[in-house]
Structure formats: structure tokens, C-alpha cells
């Protein structure tokens, strides 16, 4: 039964068209100036960061004897310097993907529970607790991960190894569970609050008319969610996920505390090893000399580019689904 109550752009809740021109009053002019100024300032700051990173990265890469993109080691203390980001790029992307796969369904579930299922008496405290998770400093997550999560994951990993070991991705050789997968789990917990709270807000914005119409047609609560809430909220979920992904990509201290980094790409996600851009910078910055710092900045530039690409991709996805978004004009 294909539904005929898909939300359209002429939804009653859509905001009135915003005038882009100033009305000529002083307050409006000041406000326009301020907001335009802030926008330009942001662009200038971003351009300055990019210019700084590019300049320092160029110095480092010109001294690099190895292929910057494909080399598997990081020796900036030796002369000539040999370093490459292959392992870091792999580790960053893989741990973030693991985090997204775990966090997004849970976050959407919690958001739906808070916005549509839970009694108000329960929904508010749950929402608060989830939001509070965002206030925990990342080093605390790191310590919790290293001291509590890692020892308790060995059982789960052995179970994975028994049943999924044949895939190669989930084989486990024993020892401390300080792997990219563990990092992914930790990152998932860390990005849960942002994804949940943004999704929750989006689900709240679903026009009541849609839901009531669906209910009037005899839909169950799940059908209402499936047919009106989720389609309406999809672009919101995507932007929430991208915000979370941004955090996961750049997380530093928690990863540095929990991971057992090495410069090898392991086929198994459960064996210790790997590394991420931010973790590598944090671990090496203190002792690095001038050249070593430039090399780390070069790796930071790559992270910057990856983050830009991710955000760009998110924008494209959202733009394609504009008709569902609450802000569509």
C-alpha cells in the first residue's frame, strides 16, 4: 500500500517566504551588516586555515622521500624524512564508519522514543541524560574506554571470532581489545548525543496534520512513523549523522587513549592496530621537531579535506531531498 499522504512543499507548517531585501529601517540595516560580516568573517577564517595548512604542508611534503599518500610509515625524525598517511586515512575512515553504523540506528531509535513513544514524564529526563553525554570531556571517555570498555570487550570479540571469524574482518587473536572496532564503539557513544538531539528536534517538526491524517486513515503508530515521520525527517537525520561523523573524524584524546596504534593496515577490525589522523597528531606533536610538525600539519590538511568532502556530500544528499526538508521554501 503506497501512501498518498507524503508531505509536500505546500505543507501548512512551512514558514512564510523570507524577504531578502532590507526594508530600509536602521535596525534591519545593522542586522544585515552584522550577519553579512559574520558570514564573510567565517569564510576568511576558513580560507586562512586552509592557506596556513597548505603552506606548512607544502614544506613538509617537498621534503618527504616517500609517497605521502601511500606510504605505510611515519618517520619524521630520520633524515631524509619518510612518511605517509595511508594507515591514518584508513583508520580514520574505518573507525568513523563503525561509529556511524552503531550510533545512527540507536540515535534515531532514541529520538523516536523520546518524540513519539515515551510518556512526557519519562521523555524529558531521558532527553536530558542523552544531552548530558555530550558534556563529558573526551579524555574521560578515553579513560573509561581504556579501563572499563577494553577489558570487557574481550568476551564479545571472542564470540565474534567464533561465529564471524571466517569473514577475516572479525577474526580476533586475543590480547587487549584496543582495536579500531573498540574505537568505533567508543566514538559511537560520543556522537550519540548530537545525532539524537538533532533527530529529535526534526521529528518534533513533523507537521501534526500529516500524523493525524495518517492516524485518521487507520495507520498504526509504527505506520505513522514509517510513512510520515521518517520521510519528513530523513534529511534531518542525514544532517545529524554528518554532524556526528564530523565529530568522529576529528576525535583525538579518546582515540589516543584507547587505541593501540601501529603503522599497519590489519584486515581484522578486532586486532589491535591502526591509527587516525587526530590521534597521530596528538601522539607525536609534543616531541616533534620543526619538520615533524610540518608533516603532522600536512596530515591535518588531509583530514580537513576529508571533512570538507563529507560535508559536501551531505549537502548534496540533503539538496536532492529538498522537498522533504522543513526549511524548503
Amino acid at each position, binding site marked *: 500500500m503506497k501512501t498518498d499522504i507524503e508531505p509536500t512543499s505546500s505543507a501548512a507548517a512551512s514558514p512564510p517566504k523570507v524577504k531578502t531585501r532590507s526594508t530600509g529601517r536602521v535596525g534591519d540595516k545593522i542586522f544585515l551588516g552584522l550577519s553579512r560580516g559574520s558570514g564573510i568573517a567565517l569564510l576568511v577564517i576558513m580560507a586562512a586555515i586552509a592557506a596556513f595548512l597548505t603552506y606548512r604542508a607544502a614544506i613538509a611534503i617537498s621534503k618527504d622521500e616517500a609517497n605521502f599518500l601511500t606510504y605505510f610509515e611515519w618517520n619524521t625524525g630520520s633524515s631524509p624524512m619518510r612518511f605517509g598517511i595511508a594507515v591514518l586515512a584508513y583508520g580514520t575512515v574505518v573507525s568513523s564508519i563503525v561509529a556511524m553504523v552503531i550510533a545512527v540506528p540507536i540515535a534515531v531509535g532514541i529520538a523516536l522514543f523520546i518524540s513519539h513513544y515515551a510518556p512526557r514524564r519519562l521523555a524529558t529526563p531521558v532527553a*536530558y541524560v542523552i544531552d548530558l553525554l555530550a*558534556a563529558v570531556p573526551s579524555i574521560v571517555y578515553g579513560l573509561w574506554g581504556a579501563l572499563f570498555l577494553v577489558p570487557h570487550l574481550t568476551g564479545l570479540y571472542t564470540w565474534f571470532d567464533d561465529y564471524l571469524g571466517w569473514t577475516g574482518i572479525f577474526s580476533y587473536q*586475543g590480547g587487549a581489545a*584496543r582495536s579500531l572496532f573498540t574505537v568505533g564503539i567508543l566514538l559511537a557513544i560520543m556522537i550519540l548525543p548530537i545525532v539524537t538531539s538533532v533527530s529529535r528536534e526534526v521529528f518534533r517538526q513533523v507537521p501534526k496534520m500529516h500524523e493525524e491524517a495518517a492516524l485518521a486513515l487507520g495507520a498504526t503508530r509504527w505506520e505513522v512513523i514509517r510513512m510520515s515521520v521518517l520521510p519528513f525527517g530523513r534529511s534531518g537525520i542525514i544532517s545529524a549523522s554528518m554532524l556526528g561523523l564530523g565529530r568522529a573524524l576529528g576525535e583525538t584524546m579518546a582515540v589516543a*587513549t584507547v587505541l*593501540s596504534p*601501529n603503522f599497519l593496515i590489519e584486515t581484522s577490525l578486532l586486532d589491535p592496530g591502526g591509527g587516525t589522523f587526530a590521534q597521530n597528531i596528538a*601522539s607525536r606533536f*609534543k616531541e616533534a621537531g620543526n619538520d615533524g610538525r610540518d608533516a603532522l600539519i600536512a596530515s591535518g590538511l588531509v583530514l580537513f579535506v576529508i571533512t570538507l568532502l563529507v560535508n559536501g556530500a551531505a549537502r548534496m544528499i540533503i539538496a536532492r531531498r529538498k522537498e522533504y526538508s522543513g526549511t524548503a521554501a
Partner: protein
Amino acid sequence: MKLQRKNRLRAITAGALAVSGVLVLTACGSDDNSDSGGGGSKAASNIKCDGKGQLLASGSSAQKNAMDLWIKTYGAACKDTKLNYKATGSGAGIQEFLQGKTAFAGSDSALKPEEVKSSEQICKGGKAIDLPMVGGPIAVGFNVPGVDKLTLNADVLGKIFNSEIKKWDDPAIKALNKDANLPSLKIQAFHRSDESGTTDNFTKYLKAAAPKAWPHEPGKAWEGEGGQSADGSSGVSSQVKQVSGAISYFELSYATANSIKTVDLDTGASAPVQATVENASKAISEAKVKGTGSDLALDLAYDTKADGAYPITLVTYEIACDKGNKASTLAATKSFLTYVASEDGQTSLKELGYAPLPTEIANKVRESVKSLS
């Protein structure tokens, strides 16, 4: 009704703020593991106070605990001088010194030629020199159930950390420990994930004492094959504590603080050498000075066979200008470093797990400090 709900909301918000505030505050900490807090300031009668004002220094975190003690004692005697040592890491310390931001730097390794060259801009008419001040044994800690005493040599250590020896009951280990009841357990070798002077010294030792088993170039970044890693000495030592079958290297104080058993080294001396402060001092006295003039960069004898000399020893330096120190800080720098190199300053290190400099080298350091200008 509405009012009530608002109040509840407010209460929850306040509670949430309080909780998160506490969490944020408690997040600030350090990996300082010494209990030097209660050490108190001893009667420091022979400290000669010169100069006044603020003295900034930064660098090696390996000497942080020693610095804290020195600053406390010196500060108690010389109220006019405020010392501030930031344990930012050797690399950052040298950089800040070369930019003229600090009076002296702490570093786990001697200056490189290009760093000496660029110091000529800061030291008007002179150059930067290395003054050895703190030594300490790097212990190899292990966690093998049922084994209390373990003797290894450089060759076996190199192979363990290069993933060539994989089980604790390997014949090579058995040959060195005939009495020990070694289990058939996987060896989990941990190394530092951050760049560190400890790694630098440990790999220098492996390279010098067992070049065949350790084919990699020594350096601050780990280059061995395989193994696991963790951040900082506190990180690797807590892994050794947690993981059965683990082995790693860290400053002796971490082994003492966590009651981790340490490896005795078979150096070729008449008996295996324990990782102790005294044995480290003995090894430092075997070192040769490779610096020229007042520069006292040491060439440590990593392959020493002397009885009771523990060769995996870290020496950290203070770096200052031999000539052309800033006039505003020179007097205080000299006065502080004189105290640090003095007998009192050196012997007080022992209780923190550092090794005092042997007399001969300490004398040279005192002369160099005297000649600073």
C-alpha cells in the same frame, strides 16, 4: 501545573549543569605518578640565590618530577625567583628555547648540529650547550603468571620487541632462565605510541647491544615490527599491569609505583644487572663526553659489560647558552643550575627513582654551569 513543570525543569537544568561542571573540572589531570608532594622543603642552606624575577623553562617530561622537587626546594630558599617549568616535551622545549622564549630547555637527547647552528641567533656570541642533569634507568617490566624473576639479554629483547620470539617458553628465553617455570603464553610486547625520549634511548640500546636482532634505526618514533602500543609511560605500564603475557619499557618509577616486576639484564657482566638507581648511575659513569668545550653531551655506553652497570639508561639535559644568555635571566639561571648540579640537588633525586650523576660528570657539569655567561 505549568509553573510546577517549569520549576522541575529548572531544577533538572541546574542539576545537569552541576554534574557537567564537576565532570569538566575533574577532567584536568596529569600523568604525574610520583608521591613527591609530601617531600617537603628540606633545609637548603647551601643554595646561593642570585638574580630575581621570573625564570621560564620548558621541555622534557621525563625530568618533570625532578624539576618539581628542585623548584620546590630552590623556591623555598630563594623567594625572589619564580621558576616555571612546563613539561611540554623535548621537541617543544628546544623549539621554545631557540625562539628565545625560555631561559633554558630540558631535553632527553642532545642537540642536533642544525639546532646548535640556529642557537647562534639566540646566544649572542655563543651557542647552546647540553648539560646532563638527570639520569634514570628505563626498566623493562613484564607480567608473566608464575614468573617472579626474569633475565634477558639484548639479543632476546630485540627479538621479542621485533615479534620474532612470540611465546614465553621460547628456547632462547628458557636458556637464560633455567629455573623459571615459563608458561606457553603469547608475548604481548607494548611500545610507546607517542614519540618519546624513552623509546629513543631504548632503541639506541637495542641497536648498540644487539644490532642483528634489532635492525631498525633508533629514534623517538617506534620502528619495530608488530606489537601493541599505548600512550605515554603511564599507558604502557598500565597495559603491562592489565595484560597477562605483556612486556614493555618505562622509567623505573612507573614500575615501582605499579609494583610491576622488572627484567634483569644479562649484559655479559659477571651477574645479571637489576634495574636500580645505583646501577644506572654506574652506567652513566661509563659514558664518554662527546661534546666539546663546555658542552657535555654524553655518549652512553649501551653495550657496557661492567659489573653492576645497567645500560638502558636515560640521561636528560638542560640546554642553555654557553655565552650570550639574556642578561635578565643569567644570574637566576646560573644560581638554579648550580643548585641542581650540586650534591644536594643530585642526591635528592634518588627518592624519586632518578639516578644522580656520578661524581666525575657532576664535577664537569658544575664547572660548565660556572662558566655560563
